[in-house]
């Protein structure tokens, strides 16, 4: 499109980049003075501003970086790459100033219910076993709660665990857990940043009801080689990155593996389990207009019998050798994304992604001459195109489309030996489902105070004997009272065409994903959210108070006593019903300064309505946690020493208690049976839990060639109870009574990190 269409207008476009590594910065604010009009960089660091001819001051800022100011004489369209220095190299005042500007931009943005986290801060937050874990940190944000104690599962705004779209460089990660859910698959050294969106969803996202967690991997340093890594209580990590061709192409490779099996193996203690992750990314600039990115992730959990030699099988799983008894499993994800950025003009940006991902598990067991294999697999091949047309600073049109071809191979069961009389082999059951979506979103600065972002996504799922099509309107708006205060409102209709078949909230290897069918309808939700944002300029903090109401339909639950393991017909066990969730969230955050961190509080309610459960009466969701308070503080004591701590208070999850019993003759009238009496579903709560975690970080002198960091941390410092279930105990003096055991208590840890 010619600038002549807009009279004497010209375009400034380019990328905002990290000055040291050359990596693009996503979501950086680019603003012109004196008009105070601006845009944010897109997911690839690109910006475009079309302005009338004139002289401007271009201000660029981004949390964690200093700000940049440049004078521009705009008498022709120009390309300009803006470089920002990371915080560590800037004086405090510059950093604070950049942070203030970023908060001022956030006040004016219609984007709501979204929180961006920088890996730099995230790595300082104390976590279980001293292993920095993005999922554990996300659990500390308002609106997000966890499944069980210590687990990486997230439940957002009263939703279910399968309602979160977790993307790693645009590829869906179906299973985010290692070690039965205690650690996430995301190696923090391999990541650049992440954003969680809980409501007011932009039209480009779809496919899950409750949240989008968009994680970007490091692109690799375009200027010089770097290596960093660490040795923690459980795992070791190593990342190598650098230029392939300076300023044109770079790579980043990260690996992580647990080594407790190797260490204890030295002294003859067999630990037959390990997990590993491998992240790799490369990017190349093909010219002024084109750029290619290739990224991949591979990770597995492996359990093997220590006393037997592992063989390989046709199923490519770990198999236990030996004649007597054994058990093993392998489960993991593969994701890979090939992305092509193309600039059609200085105002029309496009990205096309070819995506492949796979989640697979194999479980093998053998007893005497009997063996059993259980496997499941989901594979996706997707093509996605996103366009951004930057009409002028007030108007942006985003549009695109997506196609995903799913191949599900759930619950493959194979038994050999006498056990085959009891366990039947499953029939071949390849299920193919296709998802399509088209979207468009228009961002419009209506007036100085009012900005709208309205969009429409039309999604469809094509499954055997059924086609589902659904319009998904999206809308968000901000009304700015002044530079420091704004009100925001958002609405989103979301559809979900996949669900997780799981017999529990514990991450089991047997959990599997399954598409909608002719009988199982897509889940959908309507969510409205309203918020107030205030920028405390003096203390450089941002306050957000937000409330939401979410109505959900066709949620999935399973019949009481449903057996999903070794059950090839689990569709019959599935029930669909409705739900509603509402609540309020408060977030006060400070990203820069000697003291940084956040305080998050959530008051939440989440209910379910299933005709065939709880006698048709409404019941509370299992993770209907009423209060959730997190205080995260990172205190920079000196240039080399920092201290961080987390305090969290969390209402207990719900459970269905047994409240009585009775005796009755069995159906054949040959014996008497005891029948338990249960209260209504999820009617009682476990005791609330509170916890303090601390982390002391001691860094080497910045002048050293090899930078080192020691992390001395302690999870649950005061060994406070963190109940996760109810047991029945017996004491001779008082008989039987109920207790709630804790899963994790005080756990100190030490980790050593390096970088050069």
């Amino acid at each position, binding site marked *: 499109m010619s600038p002549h269409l807009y009279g004497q207008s010209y375009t400034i476009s380019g990328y905002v980049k990290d000055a040291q590594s050359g990596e693009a910065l996503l979501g950086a604010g680019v603003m012109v003075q004196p008009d105070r009009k601006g845009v944010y960089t897109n997911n690839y660091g690109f910006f475009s501003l079309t302005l009338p001819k004139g002289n401007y001051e271009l201000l660029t800022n981004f949390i964690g970086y200093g700000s940049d100011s440049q004078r521009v004489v705009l008498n022709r369209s120009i390309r300009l790459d803006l470089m920002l220095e990371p915080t560590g190299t800037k004086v405090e005042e510059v950093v604070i100033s950049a942070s203030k500007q970023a908060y001022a931009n956030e006040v004016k943005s219609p984007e709501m219910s979204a929180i961006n986290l920088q890996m730099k801060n995230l790595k300082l937050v104390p976590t279980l076993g001293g292993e920095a874990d993005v999922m554990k940190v996300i659990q500390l944000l308002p609106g997000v709660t966890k499944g069980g104690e210590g687990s990486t599962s997230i439940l957002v705004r009263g939703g279910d665990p399968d309602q979160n779209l977790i993307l790693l460089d645009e590829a869906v990660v179906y299973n985010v857990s290692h070690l039965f859910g205690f650690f996430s698959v995301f190696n923090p050294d391999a990541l650049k940043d992440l954003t969680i969106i809980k409501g007011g969803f932009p039209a480009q996202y779809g496919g899950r009801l409750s949240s989008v967690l968009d994680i970007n991997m490091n692109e690799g340093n375009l200027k010089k080689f770097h290596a960093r890594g660490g040795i923690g209580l459980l795992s070791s990590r190593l990342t190598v990155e650098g230029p392939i061709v300076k300023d044109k192409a770079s790579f980043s490779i990260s690996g992580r593996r647990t080594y407790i099996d190797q260490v204890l193996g030295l002294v003859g203690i067999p630990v037959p389990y390990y997990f590993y992750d491998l992240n790799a990314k490369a990017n190349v600039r093909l010219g002024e207009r084109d750029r290619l990115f290739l990224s991949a992730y591979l990770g597995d959990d492996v359990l093997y019998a220590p006393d037997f030699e592992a063989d390989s099988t046709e199923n490519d799983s770990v198999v236990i050798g030996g*004649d007597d008894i054994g058990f093993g499993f392998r489960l993991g994800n593969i994701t890979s994304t090939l992305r092509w950025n193309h600039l059609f003009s200085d105002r029309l940006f496009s990205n096309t992604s070819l995506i492949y991902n796979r989640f697979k598990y194999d479980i093998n067991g053998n007893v005497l001459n009997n063996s059993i294999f259980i496997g499941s697999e989901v594979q996706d091949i997707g093509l996605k195109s996103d366009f951004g047309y930057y009409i002028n600073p007030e108007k942006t049109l985003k549009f695109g489309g997506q196609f995903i071809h799913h191949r599900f191979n759930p619950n493959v069961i194979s038994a050999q030996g*006498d056990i085959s009389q009891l366990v039947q082999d499953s029939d071949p059951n390849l299920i193919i489902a296709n998802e399509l979506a088209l979207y468009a979103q228009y961002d419009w600065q209506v007036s100085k105070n009012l900005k709208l972002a309205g969009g429409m996504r039309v999604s469809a799922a094509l499954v055997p004997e059924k086609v589902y099509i659904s319009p998904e309107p999206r809308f968000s708006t901000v009304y700015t009272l002044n530079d420091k205060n704004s009100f925001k409102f958002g609405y989103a209709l979301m559809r979900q065409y996949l669900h997780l078949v799981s017999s529990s909230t514990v991450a089991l290897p047997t959990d599997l994903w399954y598409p909608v069918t002719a009988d199982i309808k897509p889940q959908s939700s309507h969510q409205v959210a309203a918020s107030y944002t205030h920028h405390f300029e003096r203390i450089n903090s941002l306050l957000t108070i937000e409330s939401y109401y979410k109505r959900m339909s066709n949620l999935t639950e399973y019949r009481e006593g*449903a057996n999903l393991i070794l059950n090839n017909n689990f569709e019959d066990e599935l029930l669909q019903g409705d739900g509603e969730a509402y609540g309020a969230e408060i977030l006060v955050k400070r990203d820069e300064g000697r003291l940084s961190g956040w305080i998050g509080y959530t008051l939440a309610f989440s209910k379910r309505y299933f005709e065939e459960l709880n006698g048709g009466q409404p019941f509370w969701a299992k993770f209907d946690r009423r209060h959730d308070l997190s205080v995260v503080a990172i205190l920079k004591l000196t240039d080399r020493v920092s201290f961080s701590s987390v305090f969290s208070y969390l209402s207990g999850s719900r459970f269905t208690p047994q409240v009585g*019993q009775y005796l009755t003759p069995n159906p054949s009238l040959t014996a*008497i049976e005891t029948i*338990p009496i249960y209260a209504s579903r999820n009617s009682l709560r476990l005791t609330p839990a509170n916890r303090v975690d601390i982390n002391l970080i001691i860094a080497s002198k910045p002048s050293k060639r090899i930078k080192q960091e020691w992390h001395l941390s302690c999870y649950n410092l005061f060994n406070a109870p963190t109940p996760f279930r109810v047991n029945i105990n017996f004491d001779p003096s008082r008989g039987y009574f109920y207790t709630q055991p*804790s899963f994790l208590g005080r756990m100190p840890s030490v980790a050593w990190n390096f970088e050069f």
Partner: protein
Amino acid sequence: MSKLFLYICLPLILLTSCIPDPVEIDVPQAESKIVVASQMLLDQAVLIQLSRSFNALTETPTDGDSLDEDFLDALLLDSARVIMTGPNGPDTLFKLDRGFYLRVGEALTLNESYNLSIFDSVSGKQVFSQATVLPPTEFTEVGYAFETERFELADTFFLDSTFKLQLQFDDLVGENYYMVNLYNLSQGEGQPSTNPLSLQEGLPTFTYTDALLNGPTFYDTLTYRNVRQGDTLAVTLAHVSKSYYEFLLARERSGSSFFANLLGEPVSYPSNIEGGFGFFNLHFPTTRVLVVE
């Protein structure tokens, strides 16, 4: 590094790590209610058994393989007035023994509904229920196949016996539910199965719904592993109510999977007793006797 970890860090961490003591929780218990069980003995006789529900934390004491008599006695309801009202008016049941009440009188009328009213004069509690006398259905055919096999596992020989009960019956008109039970009336002299993979114990109850039945005649083969040669068996077929069928399904589901029990939601048992627990049934089974050869 691994040595540093092994000899210094790991012991330090292990020494200072700990798990909090369990926290007590108060789970309010449901008040004790009247529990009803019923059995149609003949077309004229109905036996009602009444007991009380009790605290979930009460251990059910056993005396060998059976429940402790004193415990059972304390649960049985001795102070009830039991009235069954049908098309011909009310019948007050007489107390046969502690907790057992019997109705003997005119024959019950097929397809008629009977109301049950129970009042406990001690607690003042009252429960109600209603059941319909369901028409019985007959087996049209009952047969079996019996196989015994010896096999070796880890140098040990085991005996695996499989009893396959083949049955056939006509489905009645309308929506129906059936229950099949097998009874071992007397044990034969054959060797019992010793297969360690015989996970089934006892003689399970089988249930059927005609919702998925394609034709008027129902065929099935049921497999049992605890039958031996020479056993005398009785197989019964009862036409049961939908609510009792759902109770049987809940019972089946509650014990169906180790993982479901450990990690899933508990199974709630339905009841057709208003204000109490248990079931008031008016079904009468038909029986065939077999001698396994």
